């Protein structure tokens, strides 16, 4: 199968942020912590005595300070507003306690306090900040939601739930915590929104295949929250272990997400997962590749499961540079955090993973181009890559006409869906709130007809197969049930006429593939001297549009004064200046030597005068004297 290669594109579709955030590397005296909620790296030197440095992706989240060393730190995290620092230490002899330090302008104040969780013998597995001034302790006995009152140096218990838990996974974007119980067979999600704890539908796994902590992630993807689980083949029982799959099980989200999505990696070994622009990225260390999966792609569910394969073949992340030299990729010291962070603790680097949309189209089997464009249509920055793909397809339309047509269809399907939603929203009235969270918002990439014409079609006025391309475009619009807007119609007319495909244009007009519109009719009229059939259709169109005044003008310019009078009368244009008609009639009479047209019109106008004003004479303001003279002259008895 021939492959489509996007010009000037790299094979890489994923890259690390150009400048990593640097921090002190992990060492015997330095401990490194990462908080994925705020995206901050904490480097704690000598237990904080020689300093704590906080590095965030942006400067406003970076700071450094000193603190006392009160024992080894297990976890350290700022509250979302960066005003309270919470520290959990390993203190075997004490109760489960978390320390708090109030901060002001990213600098510590001397206000310190601590809180012990309600279960006396519990072990704190971790804590999370679901909200400003709200903290949740996750313990092996259950979870406790507390309100922090920094001014009073107090915490107030809001809610707690008992659950026997071994480990947990936290999703900061949706404030959902997933607790693992029953030796990793039962996964119980809780929502920590609205200052309360809500128990959600539990996920039960096969008793024979429990999961371990490193294989479970809670992800926010496509406005839904998912539990992602690496399902490794059971190597103990099977001689040749099968490849690893990633199972995405829905926790909460808009309706429509009730299937388990199975991502087939086709690989075995160590994996890590990121979410980049609603794509699931599965990094594989052994092969140094990162696969991307799009769960929004069209596929049929089977047995409640939707199977996905990578969007394109796995390629490594774009090699990053560190200082002057290359940076080791996929190294053992990499730690991957949600949703899109990668940390190399030994090098002291924090990166964000981002998508290079054009890379997805770098090398695509010919018949998968439209699939890739569909994927790009769901990406935030996909538009540019789509234009590039389209421009190349149009330039090489001789090879890619079918694919081009499919790509147009993808674009128009998205547009149509959006237009329908807009329509429904408008008809529902102002009372209905814009419900963008339900997946009904503006699509990531919405390409209007004007944009497509400006960015793609207009660039190719010299293309060899322009006629076929324009036909495919208009055909695709028709399939999607979209009205061809003025920009596209103008372009189609120009392209077809300049390429000698006027017959095709007329055939389209006859089948109403281009909708009636005044500008279109005018464009066709102006072609009339080259192509009389176009003018014929233009006049029909004006008539259907009820543009009677224009019809009259056209007929007058075609030297058809009698027909013009008829049209004027039919449209009830009693106000049409008689001078105009008489002038055309006299010109006609003199040119053809047939005065009958003039007399007919003269009589009709007189009858009109009689009817409207009670007298057959023309008004002075109508300036018809010379025509009255002419009438007398041609109707005079021969001497």
């Amino acid at each position, binding site marked *: 199968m021939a492959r489509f290669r996007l010009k000037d594109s790299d094979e890489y579709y994923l890259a690390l942020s150009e400048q990593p955030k640097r921090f002190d590397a992990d060492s015997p005296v330095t401990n490194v912590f990462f908080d994925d909620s705020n995206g901050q790296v904490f480097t704690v030197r000598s237990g904080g005595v020689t300093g704590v440095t906080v590095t965030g992706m942006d400067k406003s989240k970076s700071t450094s300070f000193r603190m006392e060393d009160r024992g080894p730190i297990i976890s350290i995290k700022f509250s979302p507003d960066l005003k309270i620092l919470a520290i959990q230490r390993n203190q075997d002899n004490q109760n489960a306690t978390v320390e708090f330090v109030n901060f002001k302008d990213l600098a510590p104040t001397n206000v310190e306090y601590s809180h012990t969780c309600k279960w006396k013998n519990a072990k704190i597995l971790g804590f999370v900040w679901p909200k400003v001034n709200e903290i949740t302790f996750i313990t092996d006995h259950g979870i406790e939601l507390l309100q922090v009152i920094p001014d009073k140096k107090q915490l107030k218990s809001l809610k707690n739930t008992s659950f026997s838990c071994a480990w947990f996974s936290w999703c900061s974007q949706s404030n959902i915590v997933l607790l693992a119980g029953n030796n990793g067979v039962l996964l119980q999600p809780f929502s920590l929104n609205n200052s309360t704890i809500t128990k959600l539908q539990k996920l039960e796994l096969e008793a024979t295949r429990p999961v371990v902590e490193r294989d479970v992630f809670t992800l926010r993807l496509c406005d839904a929250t998912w539990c992602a689980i690496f399902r490794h083949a059971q190597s103990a029982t099977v001689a040749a272990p099968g490849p690893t799959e990633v199972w995405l099980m829905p926790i909460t989200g808009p309706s429509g997400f009730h299937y388990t999505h199975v991502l087939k990696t086709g690989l075995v070994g160590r994996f890590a997962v990121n979410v980049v622009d609603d794509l699931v990225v599965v990094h594989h260390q052994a092969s140094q590749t990162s696969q991307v999966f799009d769960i929004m792609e069209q596929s049929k569910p089977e047995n409640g499961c939707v199977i996905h394969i990578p969007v394109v073949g796995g390629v490594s992340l774009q090699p990053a540079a560190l200082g002057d030299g290359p940076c080791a990729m996929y190294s053992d010291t990499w730690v991957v955090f949600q949703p899109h962070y990668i940390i190399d603790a030994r090098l002291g680097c924090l990166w964000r993973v981002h998508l290079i949309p054009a890379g997805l189209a770098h090398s695509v089997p010919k018949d998968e181009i439209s699939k890739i464009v569909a994927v790009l249509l769901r990406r935030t920055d996909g538009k540019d890559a789509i234009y590039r793909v389209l421009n190349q397809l149009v330039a090489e*339309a*001789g090879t890619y*006409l*079918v694919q081009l*047509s499919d790509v147009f269809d993808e674009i128009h399907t998205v547009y149509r869906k959006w237009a329908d939603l807009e329509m429904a929203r408008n008809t529902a009235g102002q009372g209905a709130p814009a419900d963008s969270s339900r997946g009904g918002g503006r699509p990531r990439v919405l390409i209007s007809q004007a944009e497509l014409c400006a960015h793609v079609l207009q660039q190719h006025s010299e293309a060899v*197969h322009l*006629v*076929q391309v324009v*036909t*495919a475009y*208009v*055909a695709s619009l*028709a*399939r999607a049930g979209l009205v061809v807007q003025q920009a596209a119609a103008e372009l189609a007319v120009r392209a077809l006429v300049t390429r*000698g495909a006027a*017959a*095709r244009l*007329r*055939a*389209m007009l006859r*089948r*109403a*593939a281009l909708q009636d519109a005044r500008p279109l009719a005018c464009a066709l009229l102006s072609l009339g001297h080259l192509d*009389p*059939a176009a003018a*014929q259709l233009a*006049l*029909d169109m*004006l*008539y*259907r549009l009820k543009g009677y005044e224009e*019809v009259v003008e056209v*007929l007058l310019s075609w030297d*058809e004064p*009698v*027909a013009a009078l*008829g*049209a004027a*009368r*039919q449209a009830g244009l009693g106000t049409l200046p008689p001078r105009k008609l008489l002038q055309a009639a006299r010109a006609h009479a003199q040119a053809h030597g047939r005065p009958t047209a003039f007399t007919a019109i003269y009589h009709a106008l007189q009858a009109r005068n009689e009817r409207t004003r009670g007298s057959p004479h023309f008004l002075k303001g109508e300036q018809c004297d010379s025509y009255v003279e002419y009438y007398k002259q041609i109707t005079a008895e021969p001497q």
Partner: protein
Amino acid sequence: MIDVKAKISSFFIFNSSFGPREGEELQRILYFYPSQTSADSQKMQVGLCEAVIKFMSTFSQKPCEALRTQTKKYIFYQPEKGYWMVLVVRIPYTTKAMSAIGESKGTDFVIPSVMFDLLKSSYKMFRMFRGLFKNFSIEEIYSVCDQFFTPYILSRNISNDVADVIQGINYLPLDKNSFFKVLCFIDLLELNYPQFKCISFIYNEQLIWNGLDTDDMLTLYQYLVQSLLPKEVEKEIHGGAVAAAQRHGRFIYPPEGNQEEKLMKVYLKREEDSEAKQYYLVVYRTMSATICLTVDVNVEVQPEMLRSLDAFIGPQLSTIASTIGEQCTIHALQTAQLLSEHKFVYFNRLNLAFKTSPSVTKLHPSTAVKPEVLSIIADIHTDKKRYVHLGNYGEIIIKTPDEYWITGKSSNDREFYVIIQEKNANLKEIADEVRRICETQMKGIFFYPM
């Protein structure tokens, strides 16, 4: 009805420059039908025509068009300089003796414009398949004409139908999505097989797409619809279709898609070209859809090429054909509601589109158009006679003595005729009825108001 054998007295082609000297008269006659006519009789008829044409040229710059005698009518047509085609038909006449016994042949006559069209289309057909007369040498031309015109004349069967009075193309009304399916398929075909040109698409007997100059298209369309396809449909009815359906489709030309020597050559002009070129004709058919393609004669048509074409066209064409079939059924249901009790005819001079009221003739033979009515329509259409002159814009209502009202409308290069059989109507009622029919049947088409 022109029954060829009964009506056509003779049909001949001559060129006076081929035998300028006395005694060489027979050489001037390129073709003569019926061929068994004696040489003397042939010479006499041709001589008469030569003389009349020559004589008339002293009066007018325009070449002579017709000659009428008591028993015959001669129609002249000079397609190329010096080449004259003449059609001679017997016309009804009465003699004193015959009228005395009440016998008359007056009801059955041939409309002159139909005869002229017959001449013209026979020449166009000749030009499409053989080329211009002047391109043939004197040695060849006699046999070429004989081979072409004898079967052609014998196969022509002109009934008294509006379709023979107004020569047009029946376009298939199709919704835009089905139309685009056809068009995109043709684009794809042209891209993948650039050697194939002038692709036309016909469904049943209705044209959907053509890439030819309209004039040439009419000729090719007439050839396909009147002569080639009826034969093929006949074959399909007798079982050939089953085998064809198994293979998606089949080649009509060249037969079975592999016999090179049987390739047919045609002269055609594409829409964007200014001159006719010679091509091989390839016709492919599936279900009711027929695709007509041409290949430049300089391209060697190889069996593999046709096999690959078959593989490409076959599956796609059959899906398209079934889509169109569905659309046609829907369309038929819609038009059934619009069924008009009066017969109408629509013709667009710019694209030769021709449409008549849904053919009730097959179900109700009584509503077939009477020859007199047809003759009036032919007169209005051909615009020859002053008293029915419509020009580019006008309307005329004619009442025949036997209760027929014929309305002809002309506007914006379109013609519209309505035939109403109503004894006790008045002019206003007829005009109103025509307006109503025009509005319901020709929706969206602008006829200049009166």
